[in-house]
C-alpha cells in the first residue's frame, strides 16, 4: 500500500480509498455540485502529479486533506462564485431536526474552525497532528478548538 502507485490503477485505487474524505471536506465548504466536481477532480489530479513525494498512507491522507481544504477555500473565496453563482440548496442527510441544526451550526463556523472540528472529531486526528498538517503552533490549535466549541454551543443553544 505504501509503495508508489502505478498510473491508472493507482489513481483508481486512490479515488476509492480517499474519495469519501475529499467528498466530505467538499461538503463542508461547497454548496454547488459543479464546484464539488471541480475540486474533487483537481485534488486527484494534484495527487496523481505528486505521487512520488507522498510516501506513507498517513502522509497521503494529511496531504489530501490539506490540498482539499485549500482548494475549497479558494473556490469559496473566488470572486466569480461569490458574486455570480447563487448558493444552491444544501442537501443534508439528517435523521431529525436537531441533527440538522448541529450540522448547520458546524457548516456556519469560520473556515479554519470548521476544518479543525472535522479533522479532530471525524478524522480523529490529534491536536499535534493537526498542528503539523497546518504548520501551526499546537497552542493556537487548542485555543481555536476551544473557540469553535464555544461558538457551536452558542449556536445550537440559540436554536
Amino acid at each position, binding site marked *: 500500500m505504501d509503495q508508489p*502507485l502505478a498510473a491508472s490503477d493507482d*489513481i483508481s485505487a486512490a479515488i476509492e480509498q480517499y474519495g469519501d474524505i475529499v*467528498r466530505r471536506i467538499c461538503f463542508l465548504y461547497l454548496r454547488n455540485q459543479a464546484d464539488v466536481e471541480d475540486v*474533487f*477532480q483537481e485534488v486527484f489530479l494534484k495527487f*496523481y502529479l505528486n505521487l512520488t513525494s507522498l510516501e506513507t498512507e498517513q502522509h497521503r491522507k494529511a496531504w489530501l486533506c490539506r490540498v482539499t481544504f485549500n482548494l475549497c477555500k479558494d473556490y469559496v473565496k473566488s470572486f466569480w462564485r461569490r458574486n455570480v453563482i447563487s448558493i444552491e440548496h444544501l442537501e443534508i442527510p439528517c435523521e431529525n431536526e436537531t441533527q440538522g441544526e448541529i*450540522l448547520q451550526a458546524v457548516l456556519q463556523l469560520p473556515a479554519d474552525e470548521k476544518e479543525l472540528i472535522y479533522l479532530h472529531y*471525524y478524522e480523529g486526528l490529534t491536536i499535534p497532528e493537526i498542528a503539523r498538517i497546518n504548520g501551526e503552533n499546537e497552542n493556537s490549535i487548542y485555543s481555536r478548538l476551544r473557540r469553535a466549541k464555544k461558538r457551536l454551543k452558542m449556536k445550537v443553544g440559540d436554536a
Partner: protein
Amino acid sequence: MFVKYMDQIKAEDALKEKTRQYVEAVSGAPEAAGAAPAAVWHRKSKPLVLHRFREMVTAAVVLAAVFIGGLAYYRMPVSYISLDINPSLELGINAFDRVVAVEAVNGDGLQLLERQQLVNASLEEAVQALVQEAVRQGYIQQNGASVVSLTAVSKKAATAAALQERLREAAHQGLMETDAKAVVYTDGSDPQLRARAHELGLSAGKYKLILLLQELDSELDIEDYRNANIAALILKADSLLPTSGIGNGQTDELQQAFRMVAAAALEIQANEQRMLQNRNAEQNQAEGSGEPLQNREQVRNQADNSAAAEQGQKELGSQPRNQIQASQQKSGQNQPDHEPSKTIRR
C-alpha cells in the same frame, strides 16, 4: 453525532468515475505498466505550469492596461488656458490641474516659452512663471497699460468660471512678485471656439476678442488684429462700444462681454493716468530739490501735488484689480472717482 452525519457523506460512484476519466485524460494515462512516477511528474506538471503562466500573463496585461490607461488619463488635457499679452500661447490642463501640454500660438509665444519647463507644473505655478517671464522679456509695459488675458477653455461653463478665478489670482501673484503692473483680463470659452481659433492660427482668448470687435464693427478684418496686443484690442473694442449704451437689444453674453471690455479699458486708462501723475510728481520733486525755494507758496503747491499723487496711488494700489473690475462691473451706470477724462459709454 457529527461523525454519524459525516459517515453518510460518500463520494458518489459517478463522481469517482468522472474523476478517474478526467485524471487519465489530463495526464495521458493509462500508462504502460511500470512507468516511473518521476517521469509522470515531469510530463504531467506542464498543464499546471501553463496554468500559472497564463495567470501571470493575465495579471501583467491587466497591470499594464491599468498603468497605460492611468498614464493616458493623466496626459489627457481636459481644459485649456489661452494666455495672451501679445505673446500668445496655450496650456493644456489635465483632470488634476497639472499642465500636460504647452503650445505657442505665435512667434512671441515661442520666445516666451523658451527655457520654460512647464509640463507637470500646477496651473498656478505655470501662469505665475509665464507672467514673470513676460515681465522679464519686456512684454509687459512699465506704464501698467498692458493686459494679461487669460481665457479658460472647458466644456463646462462652471469649470471655466472656476478656472478663471484661479487664473486671475495666479496672474496677480506673478505680477506682484515682479513688482510689475498690468491689467488682468479673464474670460471663459468653449472647445468649439478654440477649434475655430486654431484653424485661423489664433489663440482662443484673442479670437474671442476679435469676434467681439467684429460684433461691434462688421467690416473689421481679422488679419488687421492678428498681431495686435490684447491691450490694443480692448481699447479698440471700448472705443466701438455702442453709444446707445449696453443692454439695448443685446444678448446677456454680449452685454457681459461689453462690460468686461469697458472695465478693462477703464483700468488700462487709470493705470496710464496714475503713471503719468507719478511721473509729473517725480519731475516736480526733482525740480523742487534742484533749485532754491522761491517762496512758501511754491513749497506748498509742490507738497500738495506729491501728496495728491501718492494718495491716488495708494487708493488704487490698495484695492486689488479684480475688485476694481468687479465693482466696475457691478456699478453699471456709476463712474468711479478715478475715471480718466474718457467717458465710458454704458
